[in-house]
């Protein structure tokens, strides 16, 4: 997992494919926002956004190739942020 592990990154072709997927997902999220999903509206939007972000992280930012250390700490950071947001709702949701 040291400095030489760059072989696993994508070629131009692969990167183009990811770009294509990201653009399609953008289209989907815009289209879906036209449908009234009620309270799922925000969750659907966030789910697609997370998927897009995951693509960027995995294939543009090469988070896996950066090593286990980065993957673990990244997930921890996201979890902590999620807890900060979630725990705030112990107050807001029950006020």
């Amino acid at each position, binding site marked *: *997992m*040291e*400095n030489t592990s*760059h072989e696993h*990154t*994508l*070629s*131009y072709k692969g*990167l*183009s494919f*990811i*770009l294509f997927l*990201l*653009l399609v997902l*953008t289209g989907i*999220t*815009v289209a879906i*926002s*036209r449908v009234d999903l009620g309270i799922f*509206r*925000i969750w659907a*939007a*966030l789910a*697609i*956004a997370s998927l*897009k*972000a995951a693509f*960027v*992280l995995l*294939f*543009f*930012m090469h988070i896996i190739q*950066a*090593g286990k*250390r*980065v993957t673990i*700490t*990244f997930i921890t*950071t*996201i979890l902590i*942020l999620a807890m*900060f*947001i979630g725990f*705030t*709702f112990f107050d*807001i*949701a029950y006020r």
Partner: protein
Amino acid sequence: MSEHHVDNTGSKFGMWLFLYSELMLFGGLFVLYAAYYYQYTTFFISGGKQLDLFLGTMNTVILLLSSFTVACSIEAMRKNSKKLVLLLLGLTVFFGILFLCNKYIEWNHKFQHGIYPGSAYMEQSAKGLVIFFGLYFTMTGLHALHLLIGLIVIGVCFFLCWSDRINAKDFITLDNSGLYWHLIDVIWIFLFPLFYLIL
């Protein structure tokens, strides 16, 4: 002290750590967004309808393209094709400027309609709308500021590549700058649906 050890994995790890702190910086605002969305859902929906969906979508596409060009430039650097690297970085800067232009048009449009913090029009609006636009200006503004910094960073990389100080043997600076640029993209990926698609 010029013989300082070269440890690219370490520098990259440091860069990731910095990105975490950036995530938490925006995270504070996401906490605010979540709380106010919960409190003012209907106003957020009516506020979202007032935003320009076309410009927002355009900007999303532009940023995705710029992320793609940065990723490709690193790939090109690995293959040691300097001209392609410069072209791709130039394109990235172009996309970045395009994004900011769009943002300017958008904000300008809002300002002309009297929608800006502390305006007379906003004073009369419902509280939920004030908060929605307050968050909109704060979050997209902070994002635009980051993008501006990112532009400068990518611009510097362009000149470093041009003068061969970033080269196929040592391109960790480009790699890390690319990470920063992608992060700006990731944050926009979340900002876009949260503001423009709450219809």
